């Protein structure tokens, strides 16, 4: 699978530059068309101080075109007015892959369910790479960690990520399962089946299962495993539980979105 239409979410934050750089890199890799969708974060207006929304839009537009010209890519700028998550989702449906920014701490306060990223993931029906707040991504998607729990969301994410998986140097499948006999055997089988399925798609993957530690959240265990392996991308299904459940009880998706240190490929 190759991605031919990419869409990057642009706003007024400083991290936009890193996201834009990564999206231009991906566009180059897949020879893809890149669309920049400008949707500012509503509640940040006060902190931006002097500039009017129109001025910020113009600044971002200029920066976007300049970066694209430097990279030598054909790009398209879209700034729908007014814009909310529903309109953004319609734009997102016309892209093979989305690039979104990690929700910031204040977003969790403003909208506890994950805000824009979660809305787009849930309603667009397209996969997204969520780019963390910090770090730079000179190596991206060379060493991929696939989190597998046999759910439909995991299957969706892996199937949507095939384009990246096929080009990666190293792919590892990670299953988190209980110590107990039957469940452990089941987890092992799930990992083997997933590896066999990926093999049919021309992806050679190793698999590994981590015993579930009651004291450690699954999401945290996955993140520590990713850092052990020096993974530069995590592929995960998003919101296998309902959003309300994630919001109240926490969950893998929320932990990943809150604490990610490497980009996460998500699909619902």
């Amino acid at each position, binding site marked *: *699978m*190759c991605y*031919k*239409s990419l869409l990057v979410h642009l706003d007024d934050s400083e991290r936009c530059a890193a996201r834009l750089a990564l999206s231009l890199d991906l566009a180059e890799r*897949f*020879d*893809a*068309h890149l669309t920049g969708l400008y949707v500012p974060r509503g509640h940040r207006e006060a902190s931006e101080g002097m500039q009017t929304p129109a001025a910020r839009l113009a600044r971002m537009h200029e920066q976007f075109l300049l970066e694209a010209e430097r990279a030598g890519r*054909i790009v*398209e700028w879209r700034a729908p007015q007014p814009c909310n998550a529903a309109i953004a*989702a*319609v734009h997102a*449906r*016309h*892209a*093979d892959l989305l690039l979104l920014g990690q929700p910031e701490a204040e977003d969790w306060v403003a909208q506890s369910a994950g805000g824009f990223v979660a809305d787009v993931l849930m*309603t*667009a*029906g*397209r996969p997204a790479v969520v780019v963390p707040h910090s770090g730079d991504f000179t190596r991206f998607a060379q060493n991929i960690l696939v989190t597998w729990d*046999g*759910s*439909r*969301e*995991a*299957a*969706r994410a892996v*199937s949507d990520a*095939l*384009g990246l998986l*096929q*080009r990666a140097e190293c792919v590892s499948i990670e299953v988190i399962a209980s110590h107990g006999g039957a469940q452990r055997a089941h987890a092992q089988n799930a990992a083997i*089946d*997933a590896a*066999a*399925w990926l093999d*049919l*798609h021309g992806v050679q993957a190793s698999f590994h299962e981590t015993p579930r530690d009651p004291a450690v959240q699954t999401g945290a265990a996955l993140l520590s495993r990713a850092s052990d392996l020096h993974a530069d991308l995590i592929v995960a299904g998003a919101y296998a539980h309902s959003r309300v459940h994630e919001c109240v009880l926490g969950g893998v998706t929320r932990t990943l979105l809150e604490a990610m240190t490497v980009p996460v490929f998500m699909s619902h």
Partner: protein
Amino acid sequence: MRQMEAGSTETGFSLALIQINGDREPESRLIARHRYSRNCGAPIMEYRSILVHLDGSERASACLDLALLVAQRHGAHVKALFAPVTTDHDSAWPLAFDAGYRVRSREEKRRALEHQFFNGLSQANLKGSWRTATDHARPELLALSPYSDLIVVGQSDPNDPDASLSNRLQAQVTLAAGRPVLWAPYVGTFPTVGERIVVAWDAGRSATRALYDALPFMRLATHTTIVTLNAEREGRIPGADIALVLARHGIEVELTQLHTPPTVSIADALLSRVDKLGGDLLVMGAYGHARWKELMLGGVTQTVLGAMPVPVLMSH
């Protein structure tokens, strides 16, 4: 008939808009074409693993044939799951008839299908595996579905006691598997599938999923038409954006609009359009709603599945 070239910001694309007004239903056709199409580098997603569900009904054999046909076209691995549907009258059998007869008749069906499966595999030079369910059909299907790129199921014949009542099992799998599901109609034969594709497009989430999931079919098709359903005209051609997205994948599509008067149901208009276009595969999103915590299909989806003349690819 009027033809015009619409401008595009991208180089290498041509968009031709053809307005046809002579017809009874006004329609416009847009053909988006990439000048360097078929030169796309790595192929788009492909079907490498196909799961086919075989129940104990009479149409299971036709369903298997369809799965093998698709597998041959895409060079896919085939997993056949023989899982008879547990029907309500199962419990009544031991009382009314010889229970052993039912077991024996299922065993005969299984043997015949297994023979047909391996025979078909060797004839088409394909690889595959056979599994006889030990559990109910639904959990068995959902356990295998994450490792499949396409699931083939058969539409229930309302007159067949061995088929799932009113497509309940197939609908649940369509909504819960998260994979594209190809439904084989219970009447007719299908010499070709996916040569002339009709995509029902409403820019919704499920339609988007279905469209992307059908990319492997579109890549091999001779003709793909996207039918936009009651799209509003706001100075732009409905479906033009998605046609461009597909054109970037090297897929040429034709766009037509479907506007239904209030007296005609969307489902009926869509099916008659499929017939008019000579389609042999309909691609559409499966819309469902939770009713009593049970997965049920929405109205249009339900109607299309009730009266489908050609195989239907659905995603949720």
